[in-house]
């Protein structure tokens, strides 16, 4: 389960829309075991592509340090699919960096953004519910 404050949900979708038609991406920080998102770090898509994304390594380091200073940790990544469903692509699955992470997908294929979250463990994908929080 991913516990996601509404403000961060808005930040995620807004960042992905801002990167359209390329994929948008960023990191999520919080309590990884409890699935509680506390902070969102939108980053540049270094791949600058409508088919691929790559989180800016330098921004990742800054986010990691900021999270550590706040007593939270990087717990996942979000990125958009601009032409396909909000479901991890074979590349997403093969390159999933951490089995403890939460993987949020934003589909911008249709007019209304679709946001879903997954766990990816040993290339096995399981969707998890997103629970929106008032703050």
């Amino acid at each position, binding site marked *: 389960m991913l516990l996601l404050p509404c403000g961060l949900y808005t930040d995620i979708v807004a960042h992905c829309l801002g990167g359209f038609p390329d994929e948008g991406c960023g990191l999520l920080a919080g309590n990884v075991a409890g699935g509680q998102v506390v902070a969102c770090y939108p980053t540049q898509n270094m791949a600058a592509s409508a088919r691929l994304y790559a989180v800016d390594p330098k921004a990742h380091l800054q986010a990691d340090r900021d999270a550590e200073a706040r007593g939270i*940790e990087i717990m996942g990544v979000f*990125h958009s699919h601009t032409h396909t469903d909000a479901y991890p692509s074979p590349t997403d699955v093969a*390159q*999933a*960096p*951490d089995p403890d992470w939460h993987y949020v997908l934003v589909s911008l294929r249709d007019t209304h953004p679709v946001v879903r979250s997954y766990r990816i463990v040993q290339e096995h994908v399981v969707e998890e519910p997103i629970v929106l929080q008032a703050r």
Partner: protein
Amino acid sequence: MPVEVRLPTVLRSAAGGNATVSTSGATIGEVLRNLVGAYPGMSGQVLTEDGSLHRFVNVYVNDDDVRYLQQLDTVVGEGDEVSILPAVAGG
């Protein structure tokens, strides 16, 4: 020279759950080889079989990605902080 290395969560289980470990080396290559030597569970996750930097990790000296420095030949000095993070990418 002793060097502190910050580990990503995915590598911590191979290091007894520690977020930071101490190892040694004068270059990033030496530091990473010593790290994997001390924690064999990281084998294949940081360096490839031929000894090059694994493409799924990013390694930093202080604020700089070593791929934009001298890669594994990047010199590490006293007080430098080495960080390893996963390369986060997909399609």
